[in-house]
């Protein structure tokens, strides 16, 4: 299980950092080439971190990476290679961003309630997954449904974080949502 868990974590890091670097490369390179360059650069970075643990800061800072976020990053990377999916409305992105920032603030002790603790198991974790799955069904959002299912699978298999909510979302969701909103603002 340790080997599978390690592979999963590296794939998540590759998807997320490949996506981040491809956004930067997109300033200079055309679609497709930017994604390939981003993935290659992320692969080199991760290989370096595997070889020299003393500089393995990406994993130290970001692991465990959310599988849900990694799946969305991978799907967005796929756009550069011709994969098409329906763009999300700006209102949805804004709602998710606001809700996630409130959740983070609660995690930092700003509010007395601790929603992160509900992600370790029991009814709240199950209800959250069902609610998100239901929303995906109503919106016919295959990617969201797949992200929720992936998060549940790795959570129950004790891969990555032991908290379902960490597998659904992570801090890297914030730049991803901001990039999405920026695109909507520019009409893309």
């Amino acid at each position: 299980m340790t080997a599978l868990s390690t592979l999963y974590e590296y794939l998540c890091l590759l998807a997320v950092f490949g996506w981040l670097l491809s956004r930067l490369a997109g300033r200079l390179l055309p679609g497709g080439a930017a994604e390939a360059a981003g993935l290659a650069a992320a692969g080199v970075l991760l290989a370096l971190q595997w070889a020299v643990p003393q500089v393995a800061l990406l994993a130290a800072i970001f692991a465990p990476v959310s599988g849900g976020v990694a799946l969305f990053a991978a799907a967005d990377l796929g756009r550069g290679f011709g994969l098409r999916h329906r763009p999300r409305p700006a209102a949805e992105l804004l709602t998710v961003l606001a809700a996630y920032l409130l959740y983070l603030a609660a995690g930092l002790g700003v509010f007395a309630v601790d929603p992160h603790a509900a992600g370790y198991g029991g009814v709240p974790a199950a209800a959250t997954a069902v609610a998100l799955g239901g929303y995906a069904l109503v919106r016919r959002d295959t990617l969201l449904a797949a992200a929720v299912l992936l998060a549940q699978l790795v959570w129950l298999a004790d891969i990555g974080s032991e908290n379902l909510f960490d597998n659904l979302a992570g801090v890297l969701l914030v730049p991803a949502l901001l990039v999405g909103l920026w695109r909507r603002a520019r009409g893309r």
Partner: protein
Amino acid sequence: MREEARAGSGRGVVRLLAAAVAVMALLGLALRPAPQWEFAFVSPPPAGEADPPFFRTVLDLRAPGRTMHSPSILRAAQPRLIWFEGSREAARDVRIMAAELGGDGSGPVRVAPLLAAGQIGGAMRPRQAVLVLGNTLQADPDDSDRLLATVLSVGGWAAASVAEVRLREGTVASARKLALSPFLNRSYLVRNRVLRLADGDIAVPAYFEMGNAFGVLVRLDRQGRVRASSRIGSGKVAIQPAVVVTGPETAVALMRPFDGTRQLYRAETRDGGRSWSRPAPLAGVPNPDAPVAALRLDDGRILMAFNDDPRRASDLTLAVSDDGGRSWKRIARLEESGREAPAVYRYPDLARLDDGSFLLAYSTFAKGGIRAHRFNMAWILEQERKQGDSRSRAER
């Protein structure tokens, strides 16, 4: 036509995925149910009240110009003390050191490095840069090869994480960070002794200190994975809970103030640690912004080691409480200012050993040394009698 067919197949896929999510949610309820919170309430080992009283200093180390701090007792047939040591606190050269004590508690048998930051980072999967080590303690009351280490990869203590480390034959067999915070898994630290729960899980008193500061009781299963957590306070109040179990479902947490109050904080649970009362300052128990150590005596009272001063940690005092930690009676002053310089005594740890005796360890010389004493119940009772006599004389 092709568009319609594609839309229809998309609907089918999303229906299938949503159904799978619902099935997995049910499976989640079966595999990750809300845990039952109940403490393993066991009687302490025989008190030995009839034995002759004894109090021995079993360790007194000093490293001029270096930092030695945050001692923690590893309970085993041959007890050990661990602490962090380096050129300064949070320096890259900090190691976790260990001193094996003789079976009878007489002196250190051997002092040697136990853990280095690089060993922990190298054992993590994926490998991670771990640059600095801090408070480290025994993760399992019955296994001194399982540790919880406060680790830093970036920034200061507010950016720390907690790593579960397993040792095998003196080397790090595995290490992983506990997932405790949604914010990059940062700002959780450990300091005080862990507790056993009735179903075999372990409750770890931890704390958060990024901007806000509060205590947390983290529940680990036998594999060392987090299964639940409950906050002890919120906002910026108190940290480093020393949790003392007083019954299967009751416990008190004695906490270091972090809001400038300069009084010890107390919180309690009546549902096995699932929820906690709001921490409140204890009248008559000053605190110079320092952690305390406490444990339950076999007669139900609580023994606490603390700094009895609102400004300086220049004393180390023992006190007992017979009302669940609400009021305290000082029984012995082990250190006080004027005996040595710098007179700064901090981070006590207190444990009951297998033979019923007590081991108390703390840092001395303003994080420049480690001292440990071993004493028995008869000595505690003797100190109480002496304090009672002196109070009677003063009243006369």
